[in-house]
């Protein structure tokens, strides 16, 4: 569409609203789990305020609960969030030119979800104002509902608290499955990493933190080598065919 849609700050707020709604149960559950892990409301809200990364924050909670060393939690945070590197690299080709400090600010707001909304915009360029709008509404929801979750969490009925413990994993599955459809590489990547992590987990060979790190890198590297090799074989095969 050639018309100037989704360019202003308020367009961004509107486009980010679905993320804000989606963050509600996940942030609420995070606040609740943070409380049961023993974090104060300050500590829990500060994590959402300064780190702002759903998967890494949940992982930090479970690692804190099992007494994993803090430096290992930081290392894991880095490994889990290195994927944002690719997302912002992809985005940097699509955003309008702007001063670096402005880019450095909205870069903080890039998550799996805001990336998806920004990257799927029909516009040829993403305006800085639009990116700020999407990032701000999603971020606000995440921080506010973390605090709300910490406050009201314990007052939720027990059966609901139990049910909400699945929220993060359901979100992971909801993000993974659409990419798995018709893509054997994605299925392979997830399945191999899951299998390696299961083996390491049940044999107690490594702690959870290291295990996720090793399983992820091993799967990502193994599958990449597999595909580079098979692509070369295909190339060789087609070359032979052309020679014949």
């Amino acid at each position, binding site marked *: 569409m050639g018309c100037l849609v989704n360019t202003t700050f308020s367009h961004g707020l509107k486009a980010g609203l*679905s993320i804000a709604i*989606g963050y509600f*149960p996940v942030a609420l559950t995070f606040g609740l789990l943070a409380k049961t892990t023993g*974090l104060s409301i300050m*500590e829990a809200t*500060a994590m959402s305020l*300064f*780190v702002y990364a759903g998967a*890494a924050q949940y992982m930090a909670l479970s690692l804190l609960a099992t007494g994993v060393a*803090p*430096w290992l*939690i*930081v290392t894991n945070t880095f490994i889990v*969030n*290195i*994927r944002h*590197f*690719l997302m*912002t*690299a992809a*985005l*940097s080709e699509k955003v309008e030119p702007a001063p*670096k400090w402005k*880019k*450095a600010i909205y*870069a*903080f707001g*890039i998550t*799996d979800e805001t990336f998806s909304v920004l990257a799927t915009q029909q516009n040829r360029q993403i305006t800085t104002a639009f990116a700020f709008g999407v990032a701000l509404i999603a971020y606000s929801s995440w921080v506010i509902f973390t605090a709300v979750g910490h406050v009201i969490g314990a007052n939720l009925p027990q*059966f*609901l608290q*139990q*049910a*909400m*413990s*699945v929220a993060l*994993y*359901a*979100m*992971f*599955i*909801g993000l*993974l499955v*659409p*990419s798995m459809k018709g893509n054997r590489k*994605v299925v392979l*990547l*997830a399945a191999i*990493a899951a299998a*390696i*992590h*299961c083996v390491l987990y*049940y044999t107690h060979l490594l702690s959870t933190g290291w295990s*996720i790190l090793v*399983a*992820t*890198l091993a799967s*990502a590297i193994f*599958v*990449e080598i597999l595909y580079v090799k098979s692509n070369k074989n295909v190339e060789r095969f087609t070359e032979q065919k052309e020679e014949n």
Partner: protein
Amino acid sequence: MGSTYWWMLLGMAIATYVPRMIPLTILDGKELPPIVSGVLRNIPYAVLGALIFPAILHIQDDILFGIIGAVTAFALAFIGLDVMFVVIGTIATLAVYSLF
């Protein structure tokens, strides 16, 4: 939790922000070797697999709880529901399950 917690938080904040910020500012325009960007491209899917299993099976003592949650979430995502509805639908299903 004490001051260790706040140092950890600072570390987490830096570890999260740096990968977000570098491509948009410093690496703007430069290209990575294909094998490196290939491996990086794979990481989201691999890490999701490792994060989901086996952790989802052990969210409650009752392993059936996790299995029902996993099956429900996969089914809801497979029929094409938005992430948000996958989350809400799975929570609702497990809420019903834990009531009985």
